[in-house]
């Protein structure tokens, strides 16, 4: 591969291919590929049966199911709210719009541990929102609802940031044409605008989902971490590591990687399908 790369690049008069490619591949290998390779190698030496026996226990299934289910719900919420937010920020004029636009990115900038303890303080039974829930006879922190809120928080900006530029580039003529042909505003939004936003919205959805599935810092404080109930998959890996059970940790890690990648693949296929359906964008 390296030889083929070099011969192709020599056609270009641009310098720095070897240096740039050298830095890129070295860094990629040391930081990403070798560690992931070590993880897979650990799984192989443990054997498929061992990996399966580790994963196929009620506690691990419960954790995987919880992580992926809540990540999906959080990503769906972010898909809807994020698209609405993008629409409002791109289309409407209101005082403080630019400030609001900046605030959207706060979950990216705020460290997850900070978000974790802040959300717990808010939603714990003695917190501002938690006490309201308690008065209504409910509980948020230390239940699945708490985890869901944390996952919504960390994935909030993704959809807005991918959809907003697409909205900004839509030409008004398309909507006007639709309106002059007798479509109601809602019909235009649903049948003209929404299909144009779908590929970008799905990209944001996938990013938000991937982030939520693996999220650890913001969740462990608010989750309560009860086995079989509010224990997320990444926490199980940490527990296995603390017991020096490297095989068990690797098995769960590989299971998470496999499920994440197949989900992202499905989303990618839907994206290709929706792009084809509307032609371009």
């Amino acid at each position, binding site marked *: 591969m390296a030889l083929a*790369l070099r011969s192709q690049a020599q056609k270009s008069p641009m*310098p720095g291919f070897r240096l740039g490619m050298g830095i890129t591949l070295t860094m990629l290998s040391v930081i990403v590929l070798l*560690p992931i390779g070590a993880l897979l190698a650990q799984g192989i030496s443990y054997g498929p049966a061992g990996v399966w026996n580790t994963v196929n226990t009620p506690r691990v299934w419960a954790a995987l199911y919880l992580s992926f289910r809540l990540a999906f719900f959080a990503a769906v919420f972010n898909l809807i709210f994020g698209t609405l937010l993008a629409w409002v920020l791109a289309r*409407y004029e209101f005082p403080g719009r630019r400030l609001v636009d900046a605030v959207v990115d706060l979950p990216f900038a*705020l460290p997850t541990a*900070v978000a974790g303890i*802040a959300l717990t*303080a808010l939603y714990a039974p003695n917190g501002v929102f938690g006490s309201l829930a308690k008065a209504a006879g409910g509980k948020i922190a230390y239940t699945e609802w708490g985890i869901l809120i944390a996952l919504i928080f960390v994935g909030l900006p993704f959809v807005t940031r991918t959809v907003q530029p697409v909205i900004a580039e839509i030409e008004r003529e398309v909507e006007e044409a639709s309106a002059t042909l007798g479509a109601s*505003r809602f019909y235009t939004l649903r049948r003209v605008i929404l299909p144009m936003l779908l590929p970008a919205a799905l990209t944001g959805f996938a990013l938000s989902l991937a982030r939520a599935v693996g999220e650890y810092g913001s969740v462990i404080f608010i989750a309560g971490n009860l086995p079989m109930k509010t224990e997320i998959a990444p926490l199980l890996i940490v527990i296995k590591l603390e017991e020096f059970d490297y095989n068990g940790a690797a098995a769960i890690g590989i299971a998470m990687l496999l499920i*994440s990648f197949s989900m992202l693949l499905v989303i990618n296929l839907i994206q290709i399908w929706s792009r084809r359906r509307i032609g371009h964008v």
Partner: protein
Amino acid sequence: MSDAAFDHTDVVPGKWRPVAEESRTTRIVLIAIALGGLALLVLAPLAVVFAEALAKGAWAAVKSLGSRDARSAIQLTLLVAAISVPVNAVFGIAAAWVITKFDFKGKAFLITLIDLPFSVSPVVAGLALVLLFGTNSLIGGWLVASGFPIIFALPGIVLASIFVTFPFVARELIPVMIEQGRAEEEAALTLGASGWRVFRTVTLPNIKWALLYGVLLCNARAMGEFGAVAVVSGKIRGQTATMPITIEMLYNEYLSVAAFSMAAVLALLALITLALKTALEWRHADQLAATRRH
């Protein structure tokens, strides 16, 4: 959302409404949902951080930050960022240069690999580093024996921070450099400039704001990373406990003011990052436009 074709309640006689716009009522409702949602989901947690930090007065908060462990955590976090951010910047420039200035087979695959850390859980990233460099592994055992441990030490924390921030700079630079094309560099080369000079005097000025933007995001994430660092750091107080790790330890010891004071420092840092980022977006919108479209 109301059906706009039948919603004429807000149309003032003699004043027509554009057809490609929602009714005034719809707009107000949507803006209210957006602002209310953001206040509840994003601003409330931020406000709580500062409220809890100052719960026993400003002096208690400041005093907790002066403790030996707190100061060592702040120093460690700054050190980790000071190493991992420049490394990442160099990688990002190199990767973007190769990807945008040359044509080669497997380019799409290379981009996928660079993006890979986005879809790997930070905890799994930490685990992978432990399996590669931990005492039980071949490389790790040898490194520990030669007095250069990686896991439960500074190098491991740096590697974990670089892993989780890996695509940040490259992702910001690639769309900008694609948009700018290769013509300017090629012209400079024809005029006899050396490769290094072309990069310094032609490419760098064109990408400097996008680079700064990527570095900013990378820095924020590197300083705040928790999951990956928690796995590789060993959480040794005063030695391998970064600021986010220290927040967890203080919080679990019910030292609320101390935990939230340190959290407030990181939150302030996040606000500064956002302010700088927003300023960049306003001032250099032209150069960053490609980044935001991507």
